[in-house]
């Protein structure tokens, strides 16, 4: 009987061991090896005219979002969620927050700077990024699995998803949440902590 209980508990413990976060996005099998798509490298200015590129992100996880400053519906909620995540993770020094503005026409760097100041962020790792043209908006947002299209019928003039995305140190997408949904954001926070505590990553 005792043996059975020990055996049973072992099975349960092994089965219940938490799996690591999957790598999301497109993948290819080449010669028996799997290659996962990565988010693109880029060189962009943030609200302080600092260049953010692959060097600035080396060794960091990052959390990404897409927004525009005059957004009336989705973005305020997404920004609240981003602030919440930043607050919950403020004791970590290996994570950056990147919010890409999809309104290259109106969201100039001075405008992003004003938005940033009013957002009341304290962390130096939080960047609002200026995308210089429409093709950059399209190519970058696509790689982050996010829609960002000009649409005169949409509120604010842009049709965009409100995803918040988690990217690991190898530029792989690992988790995401609908930034307007509190429950999803709570779940994403758990995923972020799980990833960051994984020994192999």
């Amino acid at each position, binding site marked *: 009987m005792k043996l059975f209980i020990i055996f049973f508990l072992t099975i349960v413990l092994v089965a219940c061991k938490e799996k690591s976060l999957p790598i999301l996005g497109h993948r290819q099998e080449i010669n028996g090896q799997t290659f996962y798509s990565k988010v693109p490298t880029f060189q962009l200015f943030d609200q302080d005219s600092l260049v953010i590129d692959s060097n600035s992100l080396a060794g960091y996880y990052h959390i990404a979002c897409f927004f525009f400053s*005059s957004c009336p519906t989705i973005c305020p909620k997404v920004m609240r969620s981003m602030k919440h995540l930043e607050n919950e993770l403020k004791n970590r020094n290996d994570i950056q927050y990147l919010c890409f503005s999809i309104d290259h026409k109106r969201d100039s760097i001075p405008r992003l700077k004003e938005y940033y100041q009013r957002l009341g962020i304290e962390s130096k790792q939080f960047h609002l990024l200026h995308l210089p043209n429409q093709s950059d908006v399209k190519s970058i947002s696509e790689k982050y699995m996010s829609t960002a299209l000009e649409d005169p019928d949409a509120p604010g003039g842009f049709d965009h998803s409100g995803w918040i995305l988690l990217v690991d140190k190898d530029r792989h997408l690992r988790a995401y949440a609908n930034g307007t949904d509190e429950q999803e954001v709570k779940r994403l926070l758990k995923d972020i902590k799980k990833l960051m505590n994984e020994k192999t990553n």
Partner: protein
Amino acid sequence: MKKPIKYIFILMVFLATSCQMPVLTYKEGKQLYEMRCASCHGYQAEGFEKLYPSLQDSSYIVSHRDQLPCWVKHGIRKKLRHGFTEMPSNEDYTPSDLANLLNYINSMIWHMKPYTLIEIESDLTKCSPEENL
């Protein structure tokens, strides 16, 4: 034994429904608020940092009471005390929508005398264009 229970039951139903009444009156205003206003101004009208103002400063609201219908309907272009961007307009709101919306927020926070439809209609005739979009 059954009679007193019946009376108690009727009394409880009466109390339950009568206590519901004030909340139900502003159900439409609540829906309007949550659909258009809450994402920036917050579900408790608490605002968000220095980007979107809180609506909780009752003294400011009271002193601008007759401008509120114009501001909500036509939006605000000029900067008020603080606020990052223009407030979008809600041109499709009828005077009745404005009354419901403002009275909902009023019941939540400001506790002024509720707006009447006549008052809102009168206020809307005095909107000054340079303030609006």
